C-alpha cells in the first residue's frame, strides 16, 4: 500500500510539471498584456520598460516560466501583476467563502441524490423511477445561470424571502443571515450534481440487485429491507467515493458562473477577474491549485476504495 501511494505521489510531479507548462503557454499566448492595465498616456517607453521588468514580464516566455517555476519551488506563487498582492494570500482570503459554498452544495447533493438514486434503482422502469429520471434529465440540462436568475426572481423579487446576492446583508454578520444568503447558490450548484449523482447511484443499484450475493441473501431468507440496507446499500455507495474525489477540486476552485450570478466573493470570481485582467501569476496559482487538488482527490478516492473494498486492495 505504501509503495502504491509513493508511486502515485511520484507520478504527481511530472503531471504537475506538464500542466504548468501547458497552462503557462496557453495563458501567455492569449491576446492581451497585463502591462496595459498600468499604461497611461504620459508614460514614456523607458518607464514602460522599467515597469515590465518590475512586474517580471520581461524576457522570453521560457525565462518567465523558469522564473515562475523557481519561485514556486521555493513555496512562492508570486504576486499579482495587477494588485501586487501575494497570490497565495489573496487566494486564502476568498478560499473560506468558496469552501463554505461548495461544501454545502456537495453535502446537499449527496443527501438528496442517495435516497433518490436508491429509490429509482429499486423501482427500475416504474413510475417513481421515471419521475426521478425525468427530473434528473432536467437537472443535467438546466443552465445554472438561468436557474439561478429564476430563483432570485422568485425568492427575492416576488416572494421577498431571500437576499439576492452577497454573503451578508449590509451591517449583518450573524449565522442566520449567512444561511439565508447560502440557500439559493447552494441549491443551484446542487441541482446539476444531484442529477448526475442520482443517475450513478440508480445505475449501480440496478446492477447490484442483479448480483449473485443478493440471490444468496434471498435464498437464505433475508428480507427485502435487510438485503437493501445490509448488503446493497454499501456497494451502491462505492461510486460516491469516486464522485467525491472528482469533485474535491471544485471545493476550492468554486464556480465561475454561480459565484458571478449571486455575487459570492469566492475563488470563481477571483479566477474570472484574473483571466479578464491577464493576471498571469494569479491564473497560474489558480490552475495549479485546481490541478493539485484534482489529483489528490482522485488519489484519496482510490485509497478509500481500497479501504472500503478489500478486493481492490488485493488487486
Amino acid at each position, binding site marked *: 500500500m505504501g509503495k502504491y501511494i509513493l508511486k502515485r505521489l511520484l507520478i504527481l510531479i511530472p503531471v504537475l510539471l506538464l500542466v504548468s507548462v501547458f497552462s503557462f503557454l496557453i495563458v501567455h499566448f*492569449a*491576446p*492581451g*498584456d497585463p502591462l*496595459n*492595465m*498600468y*499604461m*497611461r*498616456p*504620459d*508614460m*514614456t*517607453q523607458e*518607464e514602460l520598460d*522599467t*515597469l515590465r521588468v*518590475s512586474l517580471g514580464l520581461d524576457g522570453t516566455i521560457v525565462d518567465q516560466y523558469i522564473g515562475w517555476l523557481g519561485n514556486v519551488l521555493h513555496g512562492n506563487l508570486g*504576486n*499579482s501583476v*495587477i*494588485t*501586487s*498582492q501575494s497570490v497565495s494570500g489573496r487566494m486564502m*482570503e*476568498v478560499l473560506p*467563502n468558496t469552501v463554505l459554498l461548495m461544501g454545502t452544495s456537495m453535502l446537499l447533493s449527496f443527501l438528496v441524490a442517495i435516497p433518490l438514486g436508491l429509490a429509482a434503482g429499486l423501482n427500475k422502469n416504474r413510475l417513481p423511477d421515471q419521475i426521478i429520471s425525468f427530473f434528473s434529465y432536467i437537472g443535467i440540462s438546466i443552465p445554472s*445561470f438561468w436557474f*439561478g*436568475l*429564476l430563483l*432570485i*426572481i*422568485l425568492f*427575492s*423579487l*416576488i416572494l*421577498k424571502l431571500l*437576499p*439576492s*446576492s*452577497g*454573503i*451578508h446583508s*449590509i*451591517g449583518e454578520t450573524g449565522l442566520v443571515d449567512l444561511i439565508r444568503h447560502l440557500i439559493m447558490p447552494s441549491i443551484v450548484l446542487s441541482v446539476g450534481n444531484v442529477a448526475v449523482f442520482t443517475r450513478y447511484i440508480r445505475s449501480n443499484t440496478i446492477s447490484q440487485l442483479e448480483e449473485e450475493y443478493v440471490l444468496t441473501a434471498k435464498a437464505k431468507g433475508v428480507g427485502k429491507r435487510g438485503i437493501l440496507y445490509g448488503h446493497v446499500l454499501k456497494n451502491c455507495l462505492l461510486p460516491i467515493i469516486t464522485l467525491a474525489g472528482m469533485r474535491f477540486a471544485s471545493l476550492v476552485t468554486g464556480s465561475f458562473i454561480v459565484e*458571478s*450570478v*449571486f*455575487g459570492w*466573493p*469566492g475563488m470563481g*470570481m*477571483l479566477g*474570472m*477577474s484574473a483571466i*479578464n*485582467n*491577464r493576471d498571469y501569476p494569479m491564473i497560474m496559482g489558480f490552475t495549479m491549485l485546481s490541478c493539485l487538488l484534482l489529483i489528490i482527490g482522485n488519489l484519496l478516492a482510490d485509497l478509500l476504495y481500497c479501504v472500503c473494498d478489500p478486493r481492490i486492495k488485493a488487486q
Partner: protein
Amino acid sequence: MKKITSMALALLTAGALLSGCGTPASNTPPADTTSPAPSSTPAPSTAPEASTPPTGGERVDGGTLIMCEPSDISSLNIIYETGDEGMTMLKPVYDPLYIVAKDEVRYYLAESRTVSDDGLAITVKLRENLKWHDGEPITTDDILWNFEMRMNPDNKSSGGTKVNGEPVTVTAQDDYTFTVQLPSVSAAYDATLGGLKFLPKHVYESTPVLSGADINSTSGVGSGPFKVKQWNKGESLVLERFDDYYRGPASLESVVFKIIPNASAEEIAFQNGELSVMRLTTQDKLEKYSNDPNYQVYTLTEGRINYMGFNSNSPLTSDPKVRQAICLALNVDEIIAGAYGSSDLAPAAKTVFCPSNFYYTDVPGYSQDLEQAKQLIAEAGVEGETFRLVYNSSRENMENCALMIQQQLKAVGLNVEIQGYETQGFFEVFFYTDAGDWELGLNGYSTNGDNQGDEYMFSSEGFLSKNICTTDEIAQLWNQGDATNDPAQRTEIYKQIQEQIRDVYTMFPLTSPNFVIAVDKRLQGVDAIDMVPIFEDYLNLYMTN
C-alpha cells in the same frame, strides 16, 4: 402536482416581469448635444457648499445610497485605483484639489489656484480647515510628500508628476500654499493637477514602498465627505458620513457599493430595492424605467467618443480612397437606430471630440453618399473584397454597431467579417500589434473636458500610432494645442485637429454616448453636476420621504 403548477406559474410570471414590456419613454431628459461656445480660461467659482433645494418630496437627512459595481477594487488606496470601479467607489472618500469644468472651476481641497502668466507655475492655496478622516490636519506637507512618493518608480504611480516626460517641481510657501513648477508649458496640466487625489503622509510615510503593501487594503484614510466603515472584499464597501468634513457633513448617512458581476442579477437587485441606482444601456430598459413612477431617469454626459478606426497596416485600408468610400457609405443615424434603438442612449458624433470637450467645434462631419462611395470603391478596385471588423465584445452595443456597419457596407459591395474580442484581447489587437490582419476596429475614448494626454495618444509613440494612421501634422497640432495657454489659439488648433482627422479619413466618429441612469425616486440632487463617473459632489445628494 398543485404545488408544482403554482411554482411553474410563479416562474412564468417572474420571467414575464423580467422581460419588461414598456411603452416609449416620455420623461427622459434630453441628451445634451448642444454645441458649446469656445472655451475661455475658466472663471474661478467657489465650491458648492450646500445641496440643491428639494425638487421632489420633503427632504430628510440620513438614508443610505446603495450602488453596485461589476467588480471590486483591489485596495483602498486611491493612487492604485484608477479604473472605473476605483474612480466611482473611492470618489466619496478622497477629494480632489479642484475640478476644471467648462465654465467654472469647482474648488474642493483648494481654496484658490493661480496660473502664472508664462503658464509655467501653478500656485495652489489649500483651505485651512481641512482634516483627514482620522482628524489630522491636511497641509502642504502632505501634498509635497505625495509628489515625492509618486515620483518613486517603485510605487508605480507617477501620474501628475511629469510634463512631456520631465518631472515637475513642487515647493511649499507655507502650510497651506504650494507651487508646482512645470518644465514646459502644458495647458492641460492645470486640470490634471486639480484632479489629483492625495494620501495622508502620517499614515503612509512609514511604508517605504506602497505598491503591494498591506496598508493599501487597511487604511483608507481620506479627505472626502464619507469615510470607510467596512470593506468586505469582493462583496461590498460601506462608507459612513464624515462629520468633521470641511464643507459640513453630507445629508446622506451612508453610501454602500455592492459587487454584483452579473447584469441580470443587478437589475433584479435594483427592482427589489437593494440598489438605489442602475445604469441603463438598452432602449428597452430606458423605456421601462422611464414609465415606472418609482424611478427617475437621468441622462448625463459620458464624455466619450465611440469611433471606427481604419488600420493603416492593412493593404486595403491604407488606401485613402477606400477609407473615404467607407466613410461615405455609412449612415450614423441608421447605425444608432439599429444598434441602440434611438439616440437617447447615444447621440451621433460628428467629430472625434465629444460635445463636453472644452474645444469641441461644430465642424461638419461625414454625410452618406452611396453613389460616390461606389465610384470610389470601383476606382480603388476593392469591390467584393472582404474587410475584417474587430470590436470589444465586453462593451455594450458594440456588436450591434458592427452588425449595422456590416449591413451598410454590403450595400456598396464590400463584405465585412466581424470578430469580437474581450477587453484585454481587443486592446492587444487594436493598439499593440501591427500585423495588419484587420481593417476596421470599433473603439471609444474619453474626450471630456480639457485634452489631457490626447496629444500623446496621437503622437508617433502613442496608442493610436501602431495601427490607426495619423499624420505628422496632426501630431504637431496636438503638441501645439497643449503648449499654449491662449484659449483662442487653442480653440483654433483643436478645430484644425478635428477637421484634419476628418479629412484624412482615419477615424469615423460614431456616437457620443450618454450615461443614462435610473434612480430610486427618493434620491435627489443626482444631476446637480453633469459628470461621469457619477456624483462628483456627494454633498448634493439627499433623500426625500
